[in-house]
Each structure stands twice: as C-alpha cells, then as structure tokens.
C-alpha cells in the first residue's frame, strides 16, 4: 500500500466507524426516549399502551393507598386531568400528598391505569421537578419556592 492508500484506509475506517456510531445513536433514540406528559395532555395525546412515558404532576391529596405488600396506588393530577398510578416498590423519602412527582412507566393495555416502575419526588423543600414546574406554570398554577399547592 502506498502512503496515500494507507491514509485513505485509516480515514475511511474512521468515517465508517463514526457513521456506525451515529446510526447506533439514532436507533437508541428511537428505542428509548420517554416523552414527558402531564395528566391534562393525555386526553388529547393518545399514548398507546406499553409506550414508555414520564408522567409528571402533583400527587392528589387523599389518593395514596397501600395495597398488598409494597404496591401503592395514587393519583397524579395537574388540576386539569387526573391519572391513577400503581407502583410496586419503595416510594422516595420525599413523596408526599400534594407534592410534585414524576412517575416513569407505561399504561397497562386496555386500562387507564399508569403502571410506574420509577417514581421520583422532589429532592428538598424548594425543589420541584423542572418539567412539572414548567408545565404547571404554563397552566396557571404558580409554584414559587415553598409556596406549593396545598
């Protein structure tokens, strides 16, 4: 091989590798991106069962119920819509009624119950999952620091 051919081979190999990497990234995106919704969106959004999404909102007061063992059900609301959620596992320390929460999972087929496999709650007094805060703000629910919805 001449120098030029060698260089071409190296560059070609590199470019080929990068193309493969880009394809891989695009494939992974198509597989594993979770869209964020608030309950109010779901009436119009039509999320097919089994699709992974993140559901954000406030835990509706009075809806948290412990089922058998470690299964918990609660409702997530954004004051416009409300979605029942079931979750098996240990809720985060800061999970409280009336506080912001993000549940990740999908809808069970043929039901309106959201089955969460991950539940995230705010980290401290003044923290509100940014997604949730933005959306709620957009819907006229103001949240500033401690002044969260009671």
């Amino acid at each position, binding site marked *: 091989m001449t120098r030029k051919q060698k260089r071409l081979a190296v560059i070609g190999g590199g470019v080929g590798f990068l193309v493969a990497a880009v394809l891989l990234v695009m494939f992974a995106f198509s597989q594993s991106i979770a869209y964020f919704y608030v309950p109010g969106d779901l009436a119009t959004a039509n999320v097919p069962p089994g699709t992974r999404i993140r559901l954000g909102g406030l835990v509706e007061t009075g809806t948290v119920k412990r089922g058998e063992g470690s299964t918990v059900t609660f409702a997530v609301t954004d004051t416009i819509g409300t979605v029942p959620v079931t979750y098996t596992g240990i809720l985060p320390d800061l999970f409280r009624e009336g506080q912001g929460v993000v549940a990740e999972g999908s809808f069970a087929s043929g039901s309106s119950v959201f089955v969460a496999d991950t539940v995230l709650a705010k980290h401290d007094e003044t923290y509100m999952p940014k997604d949730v805060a933005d959306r709620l703000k957009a819907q*006229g*629910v*103001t949240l500033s620091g401690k*002044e969260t*919805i009671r």
Partner: protein
Amino acid sequence: MFFWILVAVLTAAVAAVLLLPLLRAGGRSNVDDTNDAEVYRDQLEELMRDEAAGLIGKAEAELARAEIARRLIAATAREGASRSGQHPATTRRRNLLAQALIIVVMPAVGLCLYLSAGHPELPAQPLAARLANPGNDVNILIAKAEAHLAENPDDGAGWDILAPIYYRNGRIEDSANAYREGIRVLGPSAARLDGYAEALIALSGGIVTKDAREVLQQSQALDAGNPRTRFYLALALEQEGRRDEALAAFEALAKDSPADAPWLPLVKRHVAGLSRGEQAKPPGNPDAGQVAAADEMTPDDRRQMIAGMVESLADRLKEDPHNFEGWMRIIRSYAVLDQRQAAEDALRTALKNFPPQSENGRQLLALADELAIKVEGSGQ
C-alpha cells in the same frame, strides 16, 4: 479605621509583589530555549530497553533509532541556532504602562467592587461569642432556647415560653410546632390550645380553618369562659357567614367582659359591624390573629404587614380560585386598605367562580353591599 488601614496594606503588598518583577533589573532569559533534545534522548533510551525486552524487532528498532536520531540532530541544530541567533535585546524599558496598570487596577477594582457589596462596619459574629454575651439579641435568646430544647425535647415549660416568642417574631410555623410540642409534653390547656389555634389561624392568613376550630372547641371544653377562645369561635361563625350567630356570640362576649378588658374594643367593632351590616374596621377580623403583634407596630409597619398578607392571599387565590373564604377576606381587606378598584376587581373575579345565584355568590354580594362596593351585574 483599622479595617481600612488593613485594606490599604493588603492592596499595597499585592501591588508590590506584582511590581517587583517589572522593577527588577536584569534576570535570566531563556526565551527560546526548548527541551526537544532531552526528550529525544529519552526516547532512544526507551527504544533500547524495548529492544532488549524483545518487544520490537531488530530491523524495526534500527529504523526507529535512525528516525529519532535524525530528529535529535535536527533539534540540536535548531537549538544551537536559536541560542546564537536571536537572543532578544532585553530592553530595560521601564514598562511604565504596565506599572501604571497595576497601580491603578488593584485599588480601583478592589474598592469599586468592595464598596458595592461589602459591609466594612459589620464585625464577625461567631455564634459562640454571641451565645456567651447575648445582650438583647432576640435571635440568640431564641437560639439558646432552641438548643436547650433540642437536648431536652420533653421540657414542656421551655416550649411554653418559646411558642409565643416565635409568634411575636413572625415565625408562625415554628410557633405552631412549639405549641404542639407543649401540648404533647404537658397536655392540653386552654392557653396552649388557644395559642396553637391562633398560630394555625395566622398560618392560613387569618382564616379560622376547620383544624383551628376543632382546637378552639377543645379549648372551650376545658375552659368555657375564656374570652380569647370565644372571640375566635365567634370569628369563625362570622367568616362562615352565620352572621346572626356570630353577632350573638360577640355580644355575649362583650357582656361577659370587664369594662376595661383590652379586647373589648375589638369585640365591639365586630358587634357594631355585624349589627349594622357594615364593614369591620381595620385591621379587620381576618388579621385578628396578628392584632397582638400589629398593635406594637407603627401604623406604617402595620399597613405594610397587612398589604403583604393581602398580596400573598391574592397569589394563593390565583392558584386556587375556588377558595370562597379567601375571596371574602380579600375583598374586605382591599376595602379596608381603601383600594376600592382592587376590591371591585376581586369581587368581579370571585363572582365568575361563584355565580350570583349560588349561595356563595349571594354572600359575596351581601359583602359588597356591606362595603359599598359596586360591580355591574351585582345590582339586583
């Protein structure tokens, strides 16, 4: 003064350190020295090691050695050339501009920024020193009590003392908590329950909430004649719109009170307001929970406090427009603050949520009538 001397000394010292290299004459200069040759010698050495270890073939090692040697020679030649060729004529120019920059920048940047944000008059205030000599530092006295209670959470007397102090200092949530602790340790008493209820009322912005009412009722069961309990219970009735019962309760309270009781004027205002169907005079019923605190304030402060509370209530109503009690209260407050326009706006918004035909709507209109607020569509 001492502080400013220190600042001056510090600035001068730093400036001197920076000026020193500029003023120092001579000095070595290896401006164009490079260490390429040294690096290449190192590489040759490693090549030898690799060869000895059999990591590189004889022929390849030979090639590599030739290449490094070539570079080494080139580098040596380069260095020699640069050494002999272009030693810079080290100008001993005084670099006046540079010196000026240092002399101007240091104090200018320092003072400009410091004066805008610093507090030269404030001493350091380590907590230990403040604790040792609290003087009349209320925050420290509270902190001391807190430290004591953190150690001995079952000292009920401590909670009893702290709770009203918290309340007076505007730490209402802590106050409620302290009352709760006091009740937990020493059991309910009328004074604790009333204080607790008062804190709860203040927390909800002057509204006698269901929780607060239950606490008050518990207190009344312990001590039926307590005027404070009776006042708030009457207030609760008034806020619920049960005007006749409220009036009766206030009147009874006024009758049972001694003529020089400090709360009597407040009670009488409510009686007058309710019987005439007119507004209660400032600071009005919702703020009764804070009247005690407000009484010690200057009129300006008081006005500001009320304005602040009204503002926070307005915010809350924006979040939750279905809070009927809130609307009643804010309309009244605006009227008290003489903001008729705001009161009218609030009434209009409230009527959107509570149509005039509904029970709540009728109450809103009654209130408007009482306060002489007019809104189109309310004139029925």
